[in-house]
């Protein structure tokens, strides 16, 4: 009885919430949409007032991006560099982070809390201060302008987040699940993989997306630690900010292209985001 009278109220509420969701989406996406639109306008149209919403799109900005004679003409190559550096560092941070997070959440350590805080503190140092010593280090090891010079710092930077985030997720899963599996004859490793990991899949997915994003957009280290071979896309995007004005066409084209891979990854990973709920808990 209670349920049937509540139904209309529920649907009004649902509609309201749907609208709210769309409203939030519009506010969030408006600048992004504007950016993508600008990338297919000529540079004059892009700056026109009143803003032009109906126009003939052009791909001249994208063409310019790939054909300019300065470093930016190698945009395709730079995107590949970015993909490589970001994905390897993400994979490493999530993997190493998960291992460390598991250890911290399941095993007693004498100064476990301090260790966790120390791991977090690696994120606290302002990049401006670490740039010079890291450059020195990489230079001494002859790693400047290699992928390693970027992958290692990015992995290190993301580890603090990965460890803490995944630790939180591991702590939410009660240990009895693994223990009952081990009692049933599973090794700890397989217990973790078969039972715990799927339960924290959303956490893993979220962590991976965020780590990827940080590595992907990182600029300062990429600027200083690369010269020619390991230059990544964000360095070039900055190039369009010149003293003679912002080259809006190329900048927005570059930004749009740069957003694509991360978005694709997020889409790929999204099914894992709700896996936890469908798996439920194991009795």
């Amino acid at each position: 009885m209670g349920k049937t009278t509540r139904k209309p109220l529920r649907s009004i509420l649902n509609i309201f919430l749907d609208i709210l969701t769309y409203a939030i989406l519009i506010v969030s996406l408006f600048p992004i949409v504007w950016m993508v639109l600008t990338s297919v306008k000529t540079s004059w149209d892009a700056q026109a007032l009143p803003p032009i919403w109906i126009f003939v799109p052009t791909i001249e900005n994208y063409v310019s991006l790939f054909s300019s004679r300065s470093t930016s003409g190698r945009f395709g190559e730079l995107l590949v560099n970015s993909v490589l550096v970001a994905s390897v560092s993400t994979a490493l941070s999530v993997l190493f982070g998960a291992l460390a997070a598991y250890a911290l959440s399941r095993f007693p350590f004498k100064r476990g809390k301090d260790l966790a805080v120390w791991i977090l503190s690696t994120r606290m140092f302002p990049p401006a201060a670490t740039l010079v010593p890291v450059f020195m280090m990489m230079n001494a090891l002859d790693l400047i302008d290699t992928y390693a010079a970027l992958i290692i710092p990015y992995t290190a930077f993301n580890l603090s987040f990965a460890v803490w985030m995944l630790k939180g997720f591991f702590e939410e899963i009660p240990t009895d699940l693994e223990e009952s599996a081990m009692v049933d004859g599973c090794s700890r490793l397989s217990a973790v993989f078969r039972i715990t990991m799927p339960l924290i899949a959303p956490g893993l997915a979220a962590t991976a997306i965020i780590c990827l994003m940080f590595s992907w957009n990182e600029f300062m280290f990429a600027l200083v630690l690369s010269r020619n071979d390991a230059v990544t896309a964000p360095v070039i995007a900055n190039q369009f900010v010149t003293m003679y004005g912002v080259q809006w066409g190329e900048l927005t084209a570059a930004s749009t292209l740069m957003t694509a891979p991360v978005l694709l990854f997020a889409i790929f990973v999204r099914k894992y985001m709700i896996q936890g709920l469908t798996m439920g808990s194991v009795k």
Partner: protein
Amino acid sequence: MRKRLNLAFLSLLLIPSLIIGGCQDRNAAEKQQPADSTGESKPQVLKVLYATVEAGSEAIIDAAKKYEQQTGIKIEIDTFPYNNLQEKVFSELAQKSDYYDLLAVDTPWMPKIIQHLEPLTSYMKNTKSPDVLRLDDFIAKVFLDTSVFQKDAPHRQPPQMDVIALDRITSAGFDVWSLPIQSNVLTVSYRKDLFNDPKYKEEFRKQFNRDLEIPQTMDEYLEVAKFFTRDTNGDGKIDLYGTTLMAKKHEANFVDFKSFLSTFGGKVFDDNLKPVFNDEKGVKALETYGSWILQHKVTPPGVLTYTWDEVATVFGSGQVAMAMNYHNMKLDPKVQGGQAGYFMFPGVKEGDKIVRGPHFGSWGIAVNKYSKNKQAAYELAEFLASPESQKGYLQFNQHVTRISAYEASRSIADPGVREYYQVLGESLKVGVGRPRITNYDQVSEAVQIAISEYLSGKKDAKTALDEAAKQVETLMRQAGYYK
């Protein structure tokens, strides 16, 4: 806290890290060969670290290809965004890296990095191609401001001369440290069509009793700016403004102020490097600057956030009659009948001459002291800055630095571009550069903050400038310029 205890415990590791630092220097020294311009073998590759459009990268890349064909040496040019090039150049030099042979150097960086650059004087004396070098063909003021410094006292001003003569430079104790390659000076772009419009000409004549023409002095400029600030489509709102200014708290507002200051006969520092920009000329400059924005309102209201790109946008879309910038701005084709012209930054009448002081700053190419191919690098630099190459840069709209190139510009087909080069050439002859101090950025920032606070109404001009002067004096003392 616990962190501090760990610190003490691990401080033993301090030693290895200092050793690493030391080892690296030693390795670099071992790899380096003694500087011997004749003993170097011809390199296979020369590497150049460069900026992008503000230093004319497209032109340079084009010229480099020609050099490759001529000499067989492969030239690799890495271009980096302007805003961050400083970090890149300085990081490389701080590590005494020999990776790059040639570097693009912006004038304010010179005092800080001069010890990492190779003096070019001896290379120039022994040049194999004097007609490629042609020092006399450089615009003297630009050359002196960009490339002539005394290594141990970079703030000293080089001797004045109208034509560059190497021996006069060396006898005064100076050296040449780079070759100027692109020069930027504050010029005015304006709406020729508005100035030529008979309706406006008539109205101006009635109002001011003289013809509407290009303003030569600051007062005339203000009058023209006031005249053009109006509501052109009758909707009650002003949609056309007289001029722009770059008043954002940014390097742009400092050099704007400096241009006004120089025009009114003021200086940033006196001969003892004591700040004098807060004297009556400085106050007058700042108050004039502020009055255009706040009192006469001849600028768009948002100029407090403007730097180079906003000015270009606002002029391009036809919202202002005149605009000041460091390149020739163009108009959106949609602006009805719009035609862009150019003229020099206005000055002040002194007797029968007009004294101007627009800010200028240039890019030079310098040889990395740690490079292993210094002779070859010098020859490449010579080529890139040569009269022939510079003539070739005109098609890329490069702001060339040679007199012969400006003469060649008179035969450019496009009248707008031709006019711009003429204005550019004349302006470079009267440009005023930045103070050549090692802590330029800090000094500039102190004044930027003062200007910004004055413009937002927090302080009056005298107070703001006085406080900035006090801070600048402290900064100069800290930097060791005086006790």
